[in-house]
């Protein structure tokens, strides 16, 4: 049959061109089909929910290659990554990939905004991982959007970027209003349980908390693991920022975190304390699923 390339139009499914020509019914079936892909990378697994077209047009593969590139440049566990070389003062920023300067600049902005509770050097050693994972996943979602997908979700180890709402199908699909993606928030006290469900057609859901191996988020002002919160979820447009804000807020402890997240423009937070109590910012309720 030869290699078939399906190209979704920029308007998100209005027109579909196929080379070589496919019967119309087969092309429509291909558009409605979805693919899930789980890619181990960056020390975790990144899950994709994409249209089948993203496989056919190579954009899923591009997104996956992007994540592996980020890992090669930014992983603090690879001795030859730009981050490791910078941390050891063996190179200057100028000699690194330009994205490194971009990440450093973004980390500085969040550090200033969070009163130092977010930092690219959490234990005194340069390590921007608290920003990089969310940023990389957000960029991966952007690659899929640029290729023409109007509905996809990318989850990098628990930090989620949603685009376009849940996939629509059927004859009225193009005109139907988007249903939001439904993202469960893990219950920090019960493995595989859910604390709540968040809805977002477009936007990010990032959750910081005590990881599998115990406390791993350091309070830079104490130099020791942050305590007081079991989990903190941030919802907002950009996963890079949501991830960094969730990390910063978690390091602040419950009281400071509540005031600070309330002050954030366009980002809302939901927290579960170590005692099992919860609080949320005044705009968070709009993100909670009704059922």
């Amino acid at each position: 049959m030869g290699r078939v390339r399906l190209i979704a139009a920029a308007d998100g499914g209005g027109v579909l061109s196929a080379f070589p020509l496919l019967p119309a019914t087969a092309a429509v079936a291909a558009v409605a089909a979805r693919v899930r892909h789980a890619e181990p990378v960056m020390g975790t697994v990144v899950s994709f929910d994409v249209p089948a077209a993203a496989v056919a047009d190579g954009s899923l593969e591009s997104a996956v290659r992007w994540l592996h590139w980020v890992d090669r440049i930014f992983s603090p566990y690879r001795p030859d990554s730009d981050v490791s070389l910078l941390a050891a003062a063996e190179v200057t920023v100028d000699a690194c990939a330009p994205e490194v300067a971009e990440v450093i600049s973004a980390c500085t902005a969040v550090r200033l905004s969070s009163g130092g509770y977010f930092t690219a050097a959490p234990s005194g050693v340069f390590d921007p991982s608290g920003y990089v994972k969310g940023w990389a996943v957000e960029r991966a979602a952007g690659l899929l959007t640029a290729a023409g997908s109007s509905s996809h979700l990318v989850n990098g180890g628990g930090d989620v970027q949603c685009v376009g709402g849940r996939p629509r199908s059927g004859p009225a699909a193009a005109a139907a209003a988007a249903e939001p993606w439904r993202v469960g928030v893990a219950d920090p006290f019960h493995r595989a349980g859910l604390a709540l469900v968040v809805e977002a057609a477009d936007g990010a859901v990032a959750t910081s908390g005590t990881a599998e191996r115990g406390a791993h988020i350091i309070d830079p002002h104490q130099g020791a693991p942050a305590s007081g919160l079991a989990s903190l979820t941030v919802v907002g447009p950009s996963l890079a920022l949501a991830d960094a804000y969730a990390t910063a807020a978690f390091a602040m402890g419950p009281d400071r975190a509540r005031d600070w997240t309330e002050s954030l423009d366009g980002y809302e937070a939901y927290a579960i304390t170590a005692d099992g109590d919860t609080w949320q910012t005044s705009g968070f309720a709009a993100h909670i699923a009704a059922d």
Partner: protein
Amino acid sequence: MLAAVVVTVAGLIALLSFKTHTNGSERSVAAPASVPPLLAGEHALTGAAVATVYGPVQVRVVERSRTIVAVNILRHPAETTMDIQIGQFAFPRLVGETLAAQSARIDSVSGATYTSHGYIASLQSALDKQG
């Protein structure tokens, strides 16, 4: 959704495999005092009894309108205290995982970062298997 149940049952069998026992001869097997009767519109899919080193394990999945509404453990080893503890605590937890993911109709899970190893045991992993 049945794929998630397969993951759950596999997890259950793996759990049993990690116990230590002195020998594997005649083992007593418990059947639950009563298996809940089916309600109108429900139908049951009974899995084959899976032989484990410690005895057979058998589950029944109850469906209604293509949705899993219950998972019953029909047979499980019940000789030692550990067998019984697993039956009392682990089974409800493993079953709860399947139902939680499905009943919430979620697309993805946001939580504290899991490693590649931890992903396998995560709820996100069960969702990704549904394909």
